[in-house]
């Protein structure tokens, strides 16, 4: 019964599109393009124009500043640490929620989304109440958490927590347990199953979630501002340093930092789009 017929690769499912130009399609296009232009594109264009107006040399000059450089460094450390925590936590929680049934599961699932709903500044205040020297754990934490990097990482993790988990959960749900159980019956232990089966299954969704989380962590302002105390040259991040520059009437410096943050965001979005295209092609 050896079939020699070659089975064609099934094309990825494509959402059927309406090709015809109708009144409705023109109306929707007008609304869509108008909305994006007015609210997103126009401000970004103006910002880019304003940032580059003094000339590229002047922009680079503004960025070549001890405080600014330090702020970017802090952003890199805080965002980097937060993303690592987000990733570990996100993968663990996603596997827990998809593969296990336990009391409180739905509550946990709901609570994971809480950070998206809460205003970042409220997150900052809440952390202050718990971890500041006068807070609940104050005797334990002293000033090592609040007005220091650990607190900033904590705040950043809080606001970006669900991004990785939410990116992975649908993929894990779709994959089901069969592959994992097949691997188990073939002799693979839990670690081998995670590395050889689960991780390759979720790798693209995971990469997408990590990119989203990284973008969110780099841009976080409110929660970090409250927790960091915004000490110049110590706990300032890129976004909070923009505020400092504006208060010091150094508009060119502020726009130069904004330009860098914007370029990072563009890169993240392009990377995300590229990853999603690979995902749609069926890995």
């Amino acid at each position, binding site marked *: *019964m*050896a*079939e*020699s017929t070659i*089975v064609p*690769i*099934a094309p990825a499912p494509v959402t059927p599109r309406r090709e015809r130009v109708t009144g409705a399609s023109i109306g929707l296009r007008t609304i869509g393009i108008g909305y994006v232009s007015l609210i997103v594109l126009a401000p970004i264009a103006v910002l880019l124009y304003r940032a580059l107006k003094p000339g590229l040399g002047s922009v680079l000059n503004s960025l070549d500043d001890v405080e600014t450089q330090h702020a970017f460094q802090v952003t890199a450390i805080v965002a980097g640490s937060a993303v690592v925590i987000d990733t570990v936590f996100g993968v663990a929680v996603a596997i827990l929620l998809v593969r296990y049934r336990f009391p409180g599961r739905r509550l946990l699932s709901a609570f994971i989304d809480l950070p998206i709903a809460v205003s970042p500044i409220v997150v900052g205040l809440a952390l202050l109440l718990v971890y500041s020297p006068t807070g609940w754990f104050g005797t334990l934490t002293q000033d090592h958490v609040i007005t220091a990097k650990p607190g900033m990482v904590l705040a950043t993790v809080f606001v970006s927590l669900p991004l990785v988990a939410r990116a992975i959960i649908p993929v894990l749900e779709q994959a089901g347990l*069969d*592959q994992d*159980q*097949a*691997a*188990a*019956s*073939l*002799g*693979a*232990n839990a670690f*081998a199953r995670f590395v*050889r*089966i689960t991780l*390759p*299954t979720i790798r693209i969704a995971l990469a997408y979630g990590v990119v989203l989380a990284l973008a969110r962590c780099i841009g976080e302002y409110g929660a970090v501002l409250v927790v960091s105390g915004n000490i110049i040259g110590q706990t300032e991040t890129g976004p909070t340093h923009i505020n400092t520059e504006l208060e010091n009437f150094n508009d060119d410096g502020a726009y130069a930092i904004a330009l860098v943050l914007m370029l990072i965001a563009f890169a993240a979005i392009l990377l995300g789009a590229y990853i999603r295209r690979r995902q749609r092609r*069926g*890995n």
Partner: protein
Amino acid sequence: MGIEVRGIAKRFGDFVALDDVDLRVQSGALTALLGPSGGGKSTLLRIVAGLEKPDAGSVEIDGQDATRLAPRHRDVGFVFQHYAAFTHLSVFRNVAFGLEIRKRPKDEIRRRVYELLELVHLEQFADRLPAELSGGQRQRMALARALAVEPKVLLLDEPFGALDAKVRKELRDWLRRLHDEVHVTTVFVTHDQEEALEVSDEIVVINNGRIEQVGSPDDLYDKPGNQFVMSFLGPVTTLSGRLVRPHDIEVFTVPADDAVRAQVNRLQRVGFEVRAEMVTGTDAATTVQLTRGQSEALNLTEGVAVWLRPVPNSTGLTV
């Protein structure tokens, strides 16, 4: 030897999936667990594999108590209804998986995988991804993958359930031939009585979490222990208050000894076969299965009177 299951019970909430089940599967045989969906047959298979934990009872595989062993220590090959192919690995790597986990030497793995791919007629597909195979090919790959680690028992959960009728029939014949070559103790779950009758050495009929009857295909068909087994394994109808097979009824156009009078209510031709619905005084309706030749010889038409009686020594149960 083989598999021995004692006092297995399993509930899912209020639903009793298995109720004190004892079963002995002969070593080297091809055994079918047959029954309607929700009857507990898949649960029993998954308990043997260790993919499901029983609430009570014990499982012995090849003389060794496996009740508390993790699936990976049980030495069972498991084939899933929906293939469970490792989608990111090539056909070769899928089949090699168990051997790679066991850290066998590279050239040994290569030799063994190609041996198995030849056995399942997939040698030219070694570098394909599972997504590039048809359903039947994927299931054969899954079978090769399960056999690669030389399991003590091979367990198949509705292995052909997701395939279309023609491929299912092909794979069924092929499984039988494969088993004759490999001789590994094999248990497969099916709800298709034809599949069970055609392929297996022994059939275990499971319904409502209990084993109804165990026996060879002929035994079960000819000597069903109860009405459920008789009606699940083949067509049945009632005649004079007895459950009989529609093809085990003699039809006469004149009165005969012990025959009851009936009227032909409806005649339906299905290919070579003619199904006649007869009305006697006592039964709701009696279905008689005839060949086209028999029907024409009797000159049956709707509305005529006939006399019916079961074929002597045929299978029948008092309702």
